[in-house]
């Protein structure tokens, strides 16, 4: 199994997709740092500094991470490497798990790097003293975001396998982001953002149990569907 995981990382050597991690990690910090450089307003408090950058990443995370996860799966079809991939002496499940490992590693890395960028940029622009409890609360918030995104990875996997490209994963994400909310005004995703913010400690407190249950359900359901599809599918000329 370790050979397959190592190979999945090796495949992304020199790949531009690795830049998506830096893009996602640094963009919110760069944006807010640029705004602060040209602003005469009073220095922000840590809560506001963290919360604003966190919200930005949360808003564009579905699109960004769907490109990463979709690419890891869809590229094998687009580059016609499926034929050789499935003629190695490993089960297809090994490759599926290998690819998930890479996708999850990229997502967790992006979230942790974004947290660090948030923290470091804060030292430049926030005058307030940073408490240890704040650091752990903010770190928890970023990890909650990683969990929320990882829960969707099997769904992106599933649509990438069905569509034989990363495009369906991106489309699904855009639909999630743009879908109208159930109550009206705003999108359904803005409710999800408020929900995740609540779990992470911002705004209305939310019960994390239901969130974890939903995330695990979504993850397991599409993991199972993706695994069945991946193992059973025939690889034809167009693949």
């Amino acid at each position, binding site marked *: 199994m370790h*050979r397959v995981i*190592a190979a999945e990382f090796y*495949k992304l050597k020199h790949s531009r997709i690795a830049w998506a991690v830096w893009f996602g990690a640094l963009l919110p910090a760069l944006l807010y740092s640029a705004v602060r450089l040209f602003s005469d307003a009073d220095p922000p408090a840590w809560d506001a500094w963290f919360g604003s950058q966190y919200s930005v990443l949360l808003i564009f995370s579905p699109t960004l991470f769907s490109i990463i996860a979709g690419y890891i799966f869809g590229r094998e079809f687009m580059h016609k490497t499926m*034929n*050789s991939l499935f003629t*190695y*002496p490993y*089960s297809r499940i090994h490759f599926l798990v290998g690819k998930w490992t890479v996708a999850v590693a990229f997502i967790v890395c992006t979230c942790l790097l974004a947290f660090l960028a948030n923290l470091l940029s804060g030292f430049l622009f926030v005058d307030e003293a940073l408490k240890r409890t704040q650091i752990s609360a903010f770190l928890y918030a970023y990890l909650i975001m990683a969990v929320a995104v990882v829960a969707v990875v099997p769904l992106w996997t599933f649509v990438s396998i069905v569509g034989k490209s990363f495009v369906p994963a991106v489309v699904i994400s855009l639909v999630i982001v743009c879908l109208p909310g159930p109550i009206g005004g705003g999108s359904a995703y803005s409710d999800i953002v408020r929900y995740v913010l609540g779990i992470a400690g911002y705004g209305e407190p939310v019960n994390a149990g239901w969130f974890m249950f939903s995330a695990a359900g979504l993850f397991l359901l599409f993991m199972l569907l993706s695994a069945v599809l991946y193992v059973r599918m025939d690889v034809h000329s167009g693949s």
Partner: protein
Amino acid sequence: MEYILQTRRLTKRYRDVTAVDQVELHIRKGDIYGFLGQNGAGKTTTIRMITGLIQPTSGSIEMFGREVNGRRQIPFERIGSIIEFPGFYPNLSVYENLELHRRLMGVPEPGAVWASLELVGLVDVRDRKFHKLSLGMKQRLGIARALLHNPELLILDEPTNGLDPNGIMEIRKLLRELAEQRGITILVSSHILSEVEQLANRIGIIHRGKLLKEMRLDEIREKNRHYLQIRTGDDRKAAFVLEQQCGIRDYRIHEPGMIRVYEQLGESGRINTALVRAGVEVAELSIRRDTLEDYFLKLTGGASHA
């Protein structure tokens, strides 16, 4: 008889369409087996079933003397393959693509990559990204990958697709050397008759999903008869002269203006004189033998392209 690869009643159905119908291949150790058929005859589907990419509807596959039930039992370490277009990762260099294969195949010697590159003559472009290679180089890289882990069986689906005549000749030479020097068994599919004729020692002819014939190429050569080919401006009049004046019954009009005579081959001078005297223009008269193409046409009922 030791078969490296054998299929029994191998079948693939897609709803109402039977793409491969009870195909029985028998490939012996050391064979260069030419799997011949038109585009859409079922060659690639058969090969995809053999390599575990497609699940057969029914039938069985035996490899290296053991029945293979499902792709998990396929001994991939002993097989090298190119299925249609050889896909590689465009962001990786030639060397890195082979290095990836070496690691996945568990080949311990890092030198295996270099040896493989040398074998196909790609050492000079080892640092070039895959997407910057020419089509011929991509095909050769595919062969390098297929050979890197020293397989006993090489499965090549249309390996000369898109190559220029020089490239085709190079690949043919390489495959012959591999079979002779390393004793590798090769299954090579193609729709180009001349390619198979110059490479294989055994052939299987597939047509509309069914394996029509499987035999040694020299058997075909022995079977194929010599004939006298006459190219003429008036084949009807020529046929009349052949029958009435020369007493020839075993002949056929192969195509308009071309007659093939299968008897009295030693009497070509007399036949020529008879035709000329009767006022039939003779543009060509030569003794020839049926080719694999003729044999293929006979078997498939005159299908125009193999």
